[in-house]
């Protein structure tokens, strides 16, 4: 029972490099979300998706792009990494129906940009 799986778990990048973070869920959830968590702060929403082929901006979308080509996968891309993007990134998913459904989280990707 994998739930939400994020890869990689850790990564170090140099400024200007690009990379893609992968989120995969096996619960057939329609909604998926990408958050970042910085020290002493709660999670902030970067982008989200309500279904395959659709994405939308969250609270802090600048510098990130996303894609949802398959229902089970949600990709977060950094085209030109900046030190300000050093953070822990969390992916979450939930079903579309039922307003009392919680979000299910992965264990995060710890990203350092030098």
């Amino acid at each position: 029972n994998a739930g939400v799986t994020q890869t990689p778990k850790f990564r170090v990048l140099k400024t200007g490099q690009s990379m893609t973070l992968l989120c995969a869920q096996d619960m057939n959830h329609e909604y998926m979300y990408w958050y970042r968590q910085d020290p002493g702060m709660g999670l902030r929403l970067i982008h989200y998706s309500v279904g395959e082929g659709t994405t939308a901006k969250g609270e802090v979308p600048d510098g990130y792009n996303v894609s949802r080509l398959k229902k089970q996968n949600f990709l977060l891309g950094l085209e030109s990494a900046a030190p300000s993007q050093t953070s822990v990134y969390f992916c979450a998913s939930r079903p579309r129906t039922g307003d009392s459904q919680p979000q299910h989280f992965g264990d995060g990707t710890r990203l350092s940009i030098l």
Partner: protein
Amino acid sequence: SQQGEEDPQALSIQEGENATMNCSYKTSINNLQWYRQNSGRGLVHLILIRSNEREKHSGRLRVTLDTSKKSSSLLITASRAADTASYFCATAGGTASKLTFGTGTRLQVTL
């Protein structure tokens, strides 16, 4: 900007004591949720309270919600060392059931 502020930022208690943490938010909500985060892990859902509910229980957890004051509290009774974690409130409202998180309370339970 963060929706919720949590108080206290950190709390240290002994095993067996009760822990209370508070959350304030700014706008109208559909529901309010509490999550736990163990060090180095993702968030785990604990309990959800709807906007038309005032109190909810789940095991050793009790959550209250006061929509007139835009505040909620989480009480953990008879705490255990395994309760050591960060606790976050999150408000749900608007489209796609998006959550807006508070800044969290770090709870340390010592033996």
